[in-house]
């Protein structure tokens, strides 16, 4: 299993631009881009909570456990 980040889906649903979300949760656009692409080792609860607050969603809406592709 692997964790897939569904942040881009939720951003599209909320019609939120990357620059705006990055500014509101207090991270750089570069880091947000890394997060969206899943190229990070992890996400801090603090960051996750801020994203959930801004996008008005639950962590489960942003993260999904999917079978590993071989």
């Amino acid at each position, binding site marked *: 299993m692997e964790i897939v980040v569904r942040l881009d889906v939720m951003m599209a649903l909320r019609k939120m631009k990357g620059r705006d979300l990055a500014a509101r949760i207090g991270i750089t656009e570069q880091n947000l881009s890394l997060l969206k692409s899943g190229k990070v080792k992890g996400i*801090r609860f603090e960051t996750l909570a801020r994203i959930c607050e801004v996008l008005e969603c639950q962590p489960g809406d942003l993260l999904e456990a999917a079978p590993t592709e071989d």
Partner: protein
Amino acid sequence: MTNRDLNHIISLARLLHLASTIGLIFLPVAIGLAFVIGEAGIDDLRETYAEHTLPEVIGTGSYISILVIQSVGLLLTFYVLWQMRGLFAYYKSGETLTARCAGQILRIGKALVAIGVIGILSNTLIVLILTWGNPAGQRVLLVSFNDGNVGFILAGGLIVVIGWVMREAALVAEENRGFI
């Protein structure tokens, strides 16, 4: 680490980088000057080791051997200054918790321990070489250490331990950089 803390590190590192650079220039110049003004000759050796009974003639071979032994400690001092300069160069560029910095700290610590050990050994060897020309019974095998040698070994050991800790800290920091 706050920006204020980092700025303190950067400004102090700039100063220490300059000091270690000056040390690297000053050390060979001072040694060269000692030879030029005749403060590193056989007579000076006699003066330094006046407490021991020395033979009438100290041969050139003995003198050169002693210079070689003394140069090991000086080369290590030069190496420590070089490594310190490298470490402060990283710090002044804002790089602190990295494996490279930890490596520099470890090398500095190990070299300081080596300076302490060499200090003890070189004194033993120099006295032995100087008194080798004495008749049997007047040759001296001296094993001694002063607070300077012990200080180098303890300080070096402390810095080695700090280097290990910094290496662990660098790994944690690297791991932490992967989290957003």
